[in-house]
């Protein structure tokens, strides 16, 4: 078990390192931060000085290694815009983002999984068809379109809810709903197909044949099996808690990590962008690790080293 964890952890670190490297290369090849931040009309000496002070005049490989060295010692660099430590800048925004993504995640799970299970149990019926129609709509309409429609209806027409900003909890309602609906749709579809697959398995018939009441068959036999594939999608959703709100934060001018990322990218604020990407990769990888461990808990066939030797 320990060895399994060590291998997975090593793989996770490698994934993060690859993401950081990719971000480093792309950002440096796609535009000069000096001209972008200082503007085109700045004298060449100023640009040279800016580059020197941020180490941008060094060869790329040396920048890369000194950057990696700094990360390893916990220094993620400073923002080129206002000179504050990038990590601090990003950390300031995390609570705002979580205030949207955590309730949205609960909404996705709370609606998506029951809807999917219910639809699977009443496959082909009117409720199944309605759930799936809503799910297809929720999953094909991009979140910015849905967000704008919600603003049109609830802010502009009805005037019930604010359309942007982050002053009261009311401001969070529309962004949370926007994110939650799309995610719930994805989860409902996924849960439904996982559940339909499981309900067709011979062991479900066996459970009925031994006299288990249908409700208990669903709870005790079908759900534990359908949970195995569903956990993958939920894990992915947990992994995007930090950065899953880029579009919605922009639509509702919500001052979270996502907005910060958009601004930082357009400014080529390297340290900030890299810090966010590092954070995103780390959450994703952590979520994946948790999913792997959950697989082991949910599915005895995935467990290794324990209780073998039956043959």
């Amino acid at each position, binding site marked *: 078990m320990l060895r399994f964890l060590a291998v997975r952890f090593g793989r996770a670190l490698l994934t993060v390192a690859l993401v950081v490297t990719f971000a480093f290369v792309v950002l440096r090849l796609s535009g000069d931060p000096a001209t972008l931040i200082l503007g085109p009309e700045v004298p060449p000496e100023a640009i040279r000085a800016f580059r020197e002070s941020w180490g941008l005049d060094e060869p790329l490989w040396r920048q890369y290694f000194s950057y990696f060295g700094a990360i390893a010692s916990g220094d993620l660099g400073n923002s080129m815009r206002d000179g504050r430590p990038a990590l601090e800048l990003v950390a300031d925004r995390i609570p705002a983002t979580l205030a949207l993504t955590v309730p949205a995640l609960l909404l996705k799970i709370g609606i998506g999984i029951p809807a999917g299970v219910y639809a699977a149990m009443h496959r082909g019926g009117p409720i199944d068809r309605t759930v799936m129609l809503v799910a297809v709509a929720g999953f094909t309409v991009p979140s910015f379109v849905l967000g704008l429609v919600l603003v049109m209806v609830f802010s502009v027409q009805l005037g019930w809810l604010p359309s942007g900003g982050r002053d009261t909890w009311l401001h969070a309602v529309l962004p949370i709903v926007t994110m939650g609906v799309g995610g719930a749709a994805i989860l409902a579809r996924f849960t439904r197909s996982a559940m339909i697959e499981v309900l067709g398995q*011979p*062991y479900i*018939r066996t459970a009925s*044949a*031994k*006299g288990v*009441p249908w409700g208990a068959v669903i709870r005790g036999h079908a759900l534990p099996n359908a949970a195995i594939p569903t956990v993958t999608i939920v894990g992915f959703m947990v992994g995007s808690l930090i950065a899953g709100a880029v579009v919605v934060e922009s639509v509702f001018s919500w001052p979270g990590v996502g907005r910060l990322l958009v601004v930082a990218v357009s400014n080529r604020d390297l340290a900030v962008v890299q810090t966010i990407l590092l954070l995103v990769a780390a959450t994703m990888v952590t979520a994946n690790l948790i999913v792997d461990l959950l697989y082991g808990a949910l599915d005895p066939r995935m467990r290794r080293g324990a*209780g073998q030797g039956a*043959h």
Partner: protein
Amino acid sequence: MTPLVAISGLSVSFDGAAALHGVDLSLAPGEALGLVGESGSGKSVTWLAALGLLPPHAAVSGSVRLEGAEILGAPASTLDRLRGGRVAMIFQDPASSLNPVLTIGKQIGEALALHRGLDGRARMAEAKRLLDLVGMPDSARRLSAYPHELSGGQNQRAMIAMALAGRPDLLIADEPTTALDVTIQAQILELLASLRKETGMALVLISHDLGVVAETCDRVAVMYAGRIVEEAPALALFEAPRHPYAEGLIGALPLLDGPRRRLTAIPGTVPDPREAPPGCAFAPRCPKAASACAGAVPALTEVGPARRAACFFPLRSTPSRAERKVTA
């Protein structure tokens, strides 16, 4: 004597395609009945329908009485008490018929909790006793094993232990040995026979293999395209089949001893239920078909002592040894 189970006029159709056309079948307490037929003959559907185990889109009609009480269309709570209780069922491919995420002990224990009200230590002790009864090696440790940790034969033993949990009067075994190796198949058939002797339960053995059925059962019903076409004492059926399809099936079976002869293959294939021929469904493949066969469906009628066949021109035969014994 009241039969243990009496099925009459049982019909099933799936989305308009008939799978079962008015099956009549009865079973005495403690009797072993074999049900043979090729895929699509309706042998499994008959019992799944009788126990209400078909999916909701199946249309079922007719009557199924268990010791005189109608169970077809009975409320779910009645059926749940019955299934796994008085009537237990085991299936082909034991590995996928057991829940992969639950231990063997839990799956047997669930049946014990439902039908015997056992819990805690008593439940586990009884589960272990059942595993011992079905000859599971190292039963105490197997209680905490998962199906994937056991072999096919061991999983089928676990299934049988689970079926015995409710002390059934009837065990329906649906192709219980089809997925197993020959030597393991022999072990399981032997186990079923000895359990029947010990508990006195009745057995319905569903199989496509005439040899398997012949050895284990007293009486055999042959099904074709959703109907019973012949019913007879096992030995009598093999010595002198009366329905041409039963004769064809026997002739198609290669033997392990005696001189080798050419197999009598039945030409053609089983009809699609949506394009069933008028009249006798076997007529298009039957070497003895006459014009009458296309006109009407032959009824299952008495053709000898304890024998019924659904054929306008049942095969004539000198009374077999078994029949002589019956008449004597």
